[in-house]
């Protein structure tokens, strides 16, 4: 006899498909991309689903055209997204700077694979942590990046990316990886009325009084963005701008713009700090991991706990801005922190070391990628550092 179906609105799908559904739920109706493993399933799902919801999806001639057209769609009032993986993200970075400077709300998804360069195209890596933060030339950036660890989060956090991009008027990264993107798990899509969606905020003052950029009050967020065609002067360009959007070469104006772009993130860390903390209250040792690596790390923690070893766990969910404060707190409690990650250069562990400010010893457990660490790898390394060998 058949059991009753567990629920409607449940799907056994890949993280990539969940990202596409999350974007649709968030109101994304413009998509431009160029095929790349392991992000192509997002594009394919969008291409299949957009005609049903009235969206525009374009396979562009390259990565650069994709991100620039997404920037253009954003200026025209659309919620927009582009997706790629490491070798394509490196090309998109050119357009990203334009998006940051003109304070464009849109979302970029990076499904990380094993690099550098084309690397192992179909397999997992975590080498783009710094790429998404520092890849755009010229610094002075306001990047936000969020990292899911499972299929449900891939949906939920894609919506969050769109919401934060509207609130902070900046491109937001969903920094995921091949394992999360290609794993199939249960996805529950809530009723649209239960979802919190941040719409594009529109000016309430007449065009003559509206300033395109809130540079006189640096750090301002929740600031309106008028569409082209609504009567407001829209000034977007690659050049440093004044509050009205006109190009300027003055040192004072440039510094005003740079200060605002940085402070709109750093002044609001209370709204941009999100971590998962497990069993930290009595912890003597800690593990910090993000994305796909969080799951073997948590399994290793459970195994250690079962043996009476007091291990806690922390996962950055919003990974940029980096959660310095919760990690410092954790470092003050524990003696040693292990950081498993899928790169050999120690990207996450370097950030953890910086945030820990010497309060705990930080150990990097690296791998070039292709496979995630198994729980036993994390556990064995943890035992090794605990014993001090």
């Amino acid at each position: 006899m058949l059991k009753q179906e567990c629920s409607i609105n449940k799907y056994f799908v890949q993280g990539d498909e969940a990202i596409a559904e999350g974007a649709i739920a968030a109101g994304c109706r413009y998509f431009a991309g160029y095929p790349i493993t392991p992000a192509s399933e997002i594009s394919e799902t969008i291409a299949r689903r957009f005609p049903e919801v009235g969206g525009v999806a374009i396979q562009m001639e390259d990565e650069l055209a994709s991100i620039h057209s997404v920037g253009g769609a954003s200026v025209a009032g659309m919620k927009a997204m582009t997706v790629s993986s490491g070798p394509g993200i490196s090309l998109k970075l050119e357009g990203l700077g334009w998006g940051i400077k003109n304070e464009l709300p849109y979302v970029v998804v990076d499904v990380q694979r094993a690099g550098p360069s084309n690397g192992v195209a179909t397999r997992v890596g975590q080498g783009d942590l710094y790429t998404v933060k520092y890849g755009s030339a010229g610094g002075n950036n306001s990047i936000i990046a969020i990292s899911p660890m499972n299929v449900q989060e891939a949906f939920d956090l894609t919506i969050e990316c769109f919401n934060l991009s509207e609130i902070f008027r900046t491109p937001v990264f969903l920094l995921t990886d091949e394992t999360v993107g290609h794993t199939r798990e249960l996805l529950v899509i809530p009723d649209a009325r239960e979802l919190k969606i941040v719409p594009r905020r529109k000016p309430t003052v007449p065009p003559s009084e509206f300033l395109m950029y809130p540079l006189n009050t640096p750090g301002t967020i929740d600031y309106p963005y008028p569409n082209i065609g609504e009567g407001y002067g829209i000034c977007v360009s690659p050049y440093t701008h004044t509050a009205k959007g006109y190009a300027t070469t003055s040192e004072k104006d440039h510094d005003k713009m740079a200060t605002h772009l940085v402070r709109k993130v750093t002044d609001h860390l209370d709204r941009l700090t999100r971590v998962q903390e497990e069993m930290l209250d009595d912890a003597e040792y800690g593990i910090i991991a993000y994305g796909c690596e969080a799951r073997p790390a948590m399994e290793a923690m459970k195994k250690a706990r079962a043996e009476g070893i007091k291990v806690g766990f922390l996962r950055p969910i919003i990974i940029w801005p980096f959660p310095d404060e919760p990690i410092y707190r954790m470092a003050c409690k524990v003696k040693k922190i292990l950081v498993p990650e899928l790169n050999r250069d120690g990207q996450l562990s370097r950030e953890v070391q910086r945030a820990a400010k010497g309060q705990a010893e930080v150990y990097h457990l690296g791998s070039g990628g292709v496979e995630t660490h198994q729980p036993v790898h994390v556990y064995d390394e943890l035992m090794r550092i605990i014993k001090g060998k």
Partner: protein
Amino acid sequence: MARTEIRFAGFGGQGLLLAGIMLGTAATILDCKNAAQTQSYGTEARGGASQCNVVIDDEPITYVGVVNPDIFVCMSQEAYDKLIADVQEKGLVFYDSDLVKIKELPKTRQIPIPATKTAIDSVGRKIVANMVILGSVIESTRILDADLMKKCIQDNVPKGTEEINLKAFDKGRELYREITGKA
């Protein structure tokens, strides 16, 4: 049920990925269990080594990977030679006996299922060999209810292919009973 790890391995194009997706879909959508399915494949669309891993558990699944499968479904010699050592000592192996030559493993039960030949003989399409071997796995292990699996296949395989897929699945169940003498 406790955490059960199932690995399907063979060549791209044999439909092992679909078999794993059917298993995960039936477990989560129809049986209210937890499941996670992962895969690894090369850059080729067909013919390269292909692997599909499924974890099913009543409890929430933290780690989604399969390290030492309880059940190993093998449809190529290359996959067998490379992956047999990972199988749990008391694990179960289902192999396509026309494609794989096994080695002696005293503690592991290895069940020959001529899935490709049966698919050709019974419905005239070797493309449903995946459903034959899935039928045998379900009949043997009962990890999921066979009727649930059939509903899942009916709902999820490409339109127009439901009948041959379901026939192949039932043929696989029958085959297992014949081979093991369980009527």
